[in-house]
């Protein structure tokens, strides 16, 4: 009796968790059900899957957000490569090298974590204007690349310090210099932490709306968040006639890179989040 009571409570617990997860995820499944519907099917069935599936919505949506998709991919790739490189090099320097004013420089960098972004938003716009980068994707790339090391160095210094010294000793005896120690030893053994940071960079770019809305002005330079907002705004006001399936197709397109990213890297991301100890 006791055992089956325990089993029943575990069953109820799991059912409750699945219900909560399902409710949290349902809004996304509306997108998946919806983006293949033609307008007639949509009128009668908004909430459940339907056949046949029409993929013409994707063509139409791609015309609206295709350019922005490639723009965002470019910014994300450049911001991730640059940001992860600078963060890991910085993390290596702080964990493995001895030098003067080390603590001061370290605090100079991580103190920025304490500065709420809102104070710098308007001067950031003025800076971008003065650098001649208005309406340029490079404005976003530079900001993101140099924003990465603030948390990245903090994260990776901790990780690199935990690598056993023997690994480096052997290479030092072979005559490896510091930069070689960095890319031959520190980087290969910390791929999961680097992946965590890379995911954060890509997500940061993919979700950034405020920055792009300030510095990007022409639609051919828009990133995905701006293009989605515009597409949705141009559609709204249609009331019953709003072509939601086409909007949903655009939403689905915009999610594909993140889906792929999580498909390949969610394991590292969970590990990284778990080990980095997000707490104060």
């Amino acid at each position, binding site marked *: 009796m006791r055992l089956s009571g325990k089993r029943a409570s575990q069953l109820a617990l799991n059912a409750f968790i699945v219900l909560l997860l399902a409710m949290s995820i349902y809004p996304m499944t*509306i997108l998946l059900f919806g983006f293949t519907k033609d307008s007639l099917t949509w009128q009668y069935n*908004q909430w459940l899957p339907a056949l046949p599936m029409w993929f013409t919505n994707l063509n139409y949506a791609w015309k609206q957000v295709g350019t922005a998709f490639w723009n965002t991919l470019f910014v994300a790739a450049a911001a991730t490569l640059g940001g992860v490189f600078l963060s890991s090099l*910085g993390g290596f320097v702080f964990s493995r090298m001895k030098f003067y004013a080390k603590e001061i420089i370290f605090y100079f960098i991580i103190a920025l974590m304490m500065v709420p972004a809102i104070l710098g*938003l308007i001067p950031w716009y003025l800076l971008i204007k003065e650098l001649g980068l208005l309406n340029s994707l490079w404005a976003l790339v530079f900001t993101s690349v140099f924003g990465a090391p*603030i948390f990245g160095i903090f994260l990776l210094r901790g990780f690199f310090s935990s690598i056993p010294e023997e690994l480096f000793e052997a290479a030092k005896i072979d005559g490896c210099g510091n930069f070689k120690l960095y890319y031959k030893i520190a980087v290969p053994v910390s791929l999961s932490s680097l992946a965590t940071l890379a995911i954060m960079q890509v997500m940061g770019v993919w979700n950034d709306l405020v920055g792009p809305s300030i510095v990007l002005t022409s639609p051919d330079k828009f990133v995905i968040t701006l293009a989605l*907002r515009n597409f949705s705004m141009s559609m709204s006001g249609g009331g019953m006639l709003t072509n939601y399936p086409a909007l949903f197709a655009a939403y689905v397109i915009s999610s594909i890179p993140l889906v792929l990213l999580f498909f390949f890297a969610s394991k590292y991301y969970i590990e990284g989040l778990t080990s980095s*100890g997000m*707490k104060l």
Partner: protein
Amino acid sequence: MSRKMRESLQAYFFLSPIVIGLLIFAYYPPLRGLITAFFEWIPAGDQWKFVGFDNFARMLTDEVLIASVPNMILLMFGGLLIGVTVPFIMAELIFFVRSEKLKYYYRVMLLLPLVVPGVVGMLVWNFIYDPNIGLINSLLDAVGLEQLKHAWLSDSSTVLFALLFMGFPWAAGIGPLIYLSGLMNIPTEVIDSARLDGATGLKRVLQVDIPMVTGQIKFFVVTGMIGGLQQFGQQLVLTGGGPGYSSMVPGYHMYVQAFTYNHFGYASAIGLVLFAVAFGLTIVSMKFIKSE
């Protein structure tokens, strides 16, 4: 040249791109913000005029700004309450699952909402709130409660709660994962000895688990307050601060003042005050919530 000196030069060389980049893109903007708050920009000739404390005095008589403060407080504390407690409950639920395999699957499922860009998450909720064909009004129709139907986001009496309710039941995302990492770090001996003392179930949650995750709680409180003070994504995508000014928040007011009206100095002053409040709240909560 000593060895340390040589290594120092090399370290500085490696760090120089980071330090230079941070000076330009991370240090310069907030420092300049401290200064521009005391100036106003004159479009004619692109000039800056020193105005002393005028920008701050102006805030005291800015009715939109004053009206936006209670909205922000409601959204911030509502968001904090949700953001601190719900992920913890979800993490505990998963922590109580016996099967390690299921536990792992749940943790992966928690990440699923992250594969959709945040803007899309908001826009889907915009559709859920659609007055004509949205999910909520359709459900109310289906159960015969038509009189409760609202144009949720364009009705000044419901808009703030609609913004808070977005994402219900808030069970997924990285919040529960962060709590779970804290719970899974509790040594098994601690849990075992608690069980011997008769602390199981809810009693263990209160007496053992919560004290062990105060570091995480502090993290959510601090980031939630800072985020709550400066966020205006929902206003930017969904409401524009409306209808009227019923969902206006100071951060969005700052944005509009700067980029619609070119009042860069005044907007900087609003930013400076928000920064000061955020900084103060951070210090206070760091001090008052004890963690190991």
